[in-house]
């Protein structure tokens, strides 16, 4: 079974803090993705990576950055957290080509 794990299920941070969200997959997938999920808006892609050290912006990259130093690990960084970044963050991984993505359990981040 594919396993995608995220470092925290719940996280509370203060405005202005630097926040790291970690994601690890164990299936040697080339692609990894970070989404945020908000009610009524569905999932929106923040960043994705198709190889180590490679990254591409998704639909809403502003205020975020990412790092992929190893194939199995993809980190999302909020350089200076703001209250409008309060959301559910979902990581996913998948093979190259037309394949399904596998999701982690999500991190519910609250910025106060």
């Amino acid at each position: 079974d594919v396993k995608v794990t995220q470092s925290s299920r719940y996280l509370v941070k203060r405005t202005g803090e630097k926040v790291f969200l970690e994601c690890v997959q164990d299936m040697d997938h080339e692609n990894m993705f970070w989404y945020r999920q908000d009610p009524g808006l569905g999932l929106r892609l923040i960043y994705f990576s198709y190889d180590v050290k490679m990254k591409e912006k998704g639909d809403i990259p502003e205020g975020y950055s990412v790092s992929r130093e190893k194939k199995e690990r993809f980190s999302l960084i909020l350089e200076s957290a703001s209250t409008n970044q309060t959301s559910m963050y979902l990581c996913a991984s998948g093979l190259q080509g037309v394949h399904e993505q596998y999701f982690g359990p999500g991190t519910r981040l609250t910025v106060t």
Partner: protein
Amino acid sequence: AQSVAQPEDQVNVAEGNPLTVKCTYSVSGNPYLFWYVQYPNRGLQFLLKYITGDNLVKGSYGFEAEFNKSQTSFHLKKPSALVSDSALYFCAVRDATGGGNKLTFGTGTQLKVEL
């Protein structure tokens, strides 16, 4: 740009009745379509996908989806709903940009199955 629409925010159905969760798509080129389910406080789980071939696609947990090219639809169906099917359902379409590896998701449909 590729997109999917889920016209219903919520669908209510009685247990034992058939259920349908609607999805329409807009793509340039061949459509590659997916359905996912999300149970409370969980990540998304893959249900099924349409790439090519039969218009009726069978997936996990007894779900199936019907691809209709003329109506640009990919509705999710199940012949007999269970209370445990109550969850949030997302339709998604492959985005041809970004090397073809991205998915664009709909806004989700909350399915509620009642006794």
